[in-house]
């Protein structure tokens, strides 16, 4: 980049009022049609969730977390509960473990459905924006049947879960999942099978596995490079049921560029994530035992926690989501809480991925990384 090219550059702010920048702003320096510099800015979505956690007790704290990212509410609230369960000794019943896992995988499917629509909408196909969102309504209906709320579900609680599965809920979940399974080939045709989609995404937003590791990417963004890095397998939470069944980490290997990924690979990776989630739910439902859904002493034990540190983490839809808690003896609230969202890394990696791309490719790049501003601003 010679300095005289930059003389003709102009600066465009992509956000915070931009229609497809919901709660973030990137400063783009463009020369002609090409972006030469991308400066992602955080801070437009800050709601001081960490400070809020210091004023909530150990059963309320998870409700702050699910408001950070409502698309994956079950997954977002879980790290806090895992951290609490690390500090205090609770016996989570077998049934609750499996129910938590099922709901988390169900929520992962719902979040990815939302993402398909958003991504396709950013690439200019509104049919594909609305079709998955119509299907998503069935998932939301099932959530509502189980917990009474569609987005901020607050389902898991330290020591178990809050509500038991009802036959009506099971029927609704089956409807929703059957719809997902039936429509997968359709969406596969409309996304991966569409020639215009391939034109827009292939070779766009390209990075290697080494770069991804260096930037701290996780979740589908790194699995798309062929690295089977998945917390569900690598560090299974003792209070989740991932180790009870046999399943495989979803990883795609692109023959043309092994160890690298572009926007199209990341789409295929997310398709595979859905298949894996469906598989896990299918295998967990038959082994769901009868029994209690919560440790009977959970309520009294979580009023005041012993002094200690807890670190809970889970493989979210967008990557590793974790919460670190520091508690003091006889305190009703955490002394300090730290949230580590998956999207800070993917958002700031735009700085390295975007330069050299065309301006029109920018939505394809950030859409394929699936950044959600709640996760970096908290």
């Amino acid at each position, binding site marked *: 980049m010679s300095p005289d090219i930059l003389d003709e550059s102009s600066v465009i702010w992509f956000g915070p009022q931009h229609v497809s920048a919901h709660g973030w702003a990137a400063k783009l320096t463009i020369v002609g049609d090409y972006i030469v510099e991308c400066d992602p800015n955080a801070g437009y979505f800050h709601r001081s969730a960490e400070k809020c956690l210091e004023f909530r007790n150990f059963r309320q704290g998870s409700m702050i977390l699910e408001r950070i990212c409502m698309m994956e509410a079950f997954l977002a609230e879980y790290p806090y509960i895992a951290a609490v369960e690390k500090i205090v000794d609770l016996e989570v019943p077998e049934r609750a473990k499996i129910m938590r896992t099922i709901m988390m995988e169900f929520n992962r499917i719902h979040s990815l459905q939302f993402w398909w629509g958003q991504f396709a909408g950013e690439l200019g196909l509104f*049919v594909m924006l609305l079709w998955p969102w119509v299907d998503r309504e069935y998932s939301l209906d099932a959530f509502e049947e189980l917990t009474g709320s569609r987005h901020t579900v607050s389902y898991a609680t330290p020591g178990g879960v809050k509500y038991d599965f009802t036959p009506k809920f099971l029927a609704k979940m089956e409807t929703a999942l059957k719809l997902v399974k039936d429509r997968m080939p359709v969406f596969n045709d409309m996304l991966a099978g569409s020639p215009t989609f391939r034109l827009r995404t292939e070779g766009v937003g390209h990075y290697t596995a080494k770069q991804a590791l260096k930037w701290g990417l996780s979740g589908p963004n790194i699995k798309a490079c062929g690295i089977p890095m998945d917390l569900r397998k690598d560090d299974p939470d003792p209070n989740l049921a991932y180790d009870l069944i046999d399943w495989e980490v979803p990883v795609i290997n692109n023959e043309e560029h092994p160890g690298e990924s572009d926007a199209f690979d990341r789409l295929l990776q997310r398709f595979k994530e859905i298949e894996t989630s469906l598989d896990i739910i299918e295998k967990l439902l038959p082994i769901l035992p009868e029994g209690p859904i919560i440790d009977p002493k959970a309520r009294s034990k979580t009023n005041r926690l012993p002094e200690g540190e807890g670190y809970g983490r889970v493989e979210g839809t967008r990557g590793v989501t974790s919460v670190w808690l520091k508690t003091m003896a006889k305190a009703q609230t955490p002394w300090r809480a730290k949230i580590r969202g998956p999207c800070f890394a993917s958002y700031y990696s735009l700085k390295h991925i975007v330069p050299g791309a065309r*301006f029109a490719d920018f939505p394809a790049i950030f859409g394929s990384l699936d950044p959600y501003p709640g996760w970096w601003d908290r």
Partner: protein
Amino acid sequence: MQFDVFTWLGGLWDWVIGVLLWLWGFLMWPFLWEGPFDFFAWFGGLWDWVLGIFLWLWGIVNWLIFWVVDFVNWIWFLVSLPENFMFLFRAIVFPGLIFILLALIFTVWYTRKIWARLQDRRGPMHMGKYGGLQLFADAIKLMSKEIIIPDKAKRWMYRILPSLLLVIVMLPFAFIPWDPYWNILGSPTSPFPDLSVSLVLVFAILTAVPVFSLLIGWVSGSKYSLIGGFRAANNQFAAEIPMVISSVGPAMLAGSLSLYSIVMAQTNIWYIVLLPINFITFFVAAIASVGTFPFDAPVADSEIIFGWRTELSGIYFTVVYFAEFAEQMLYSALMVTLFLGGFNGLPFLAGIVNFAIKWLVVFFLFIVVTSSFYRLRQDQVVHLCWKYLLPLSILNVVLVMFALVYIPGLVPLVIGG
């Protein structure tokens, strides 16, 4: 009584002479006064002078009134000539302005409804039956909105350009042959026959559209608008040539550049049967030229907010929104004219009904195609148009040339009976 400009002008000289004489008298009266100056006598003449001024003023008013009455009479005389009256009726009411506006309103509803069905929605539902009045409600809302003109905008241009764009887009409708008789220009019995080059004229007028998009983007004083304006110019740059060359095939088969003659030549066979690839290239190039969905880089909302329309608000946005739909309607009508036989069709239906049915079918195709593809990048638009559409359309022209020369029964078939 007919107003004659030359007679009227001939009186001008007398008037000038009269004014000069009056001035002369006014200047010379102190010198022409005889005898000692009698103030009262002089003062007594004042009344005559005032009266003279009033008479002069009355003359002017009188003349003006007569002139206006004459002028109105003259216009009324022109209008009351049967052929003139029918022309005006056609231009303003039936296939003209009011018809086009009503069709435009229907088209917007039709588009939104079909888009909604394709997207698993219901579309407008509440205003009127099946949401038929939704557009009126939208129009009232948009017109009553505050008009915000950016500080950096060139205000005068910003105000005038959207309306000019709509006018330019509406003009070519005058050349569309809707019916054997009910046309604005082009019915054989009217004193305003179709121009022999109306096809070329339509394209010539439409070339101005991207200029307006670019100018609106330029004068809006926003970077998003400017980028959108350049992208609109880029789209037209890509799509114009394939589209014009695709329309050469029908013109060659009919042996005429007049749209009316091209339709009249399709009484035996519609040209879509002979030129299906030409139809498709024209269709794709038309979508690219309008700049709707697969080719909507000029207004790509996820990239440049709303492209060259970003800063438009209120009535200016309404006008530009209408212009886009009018352009789609125009291209659909051109496709019906060039490839689908225009008003030829079922013999027991009126020509305009035949035309309208085909028009709706083509518009339906438009909507289905515009809602099935992802947005192409602007370099991919040029790539598609110049690497695929242009060679195909040129090949078609060559094939038509050879076919006309070497296939014996073709010429009588394609020039109509």
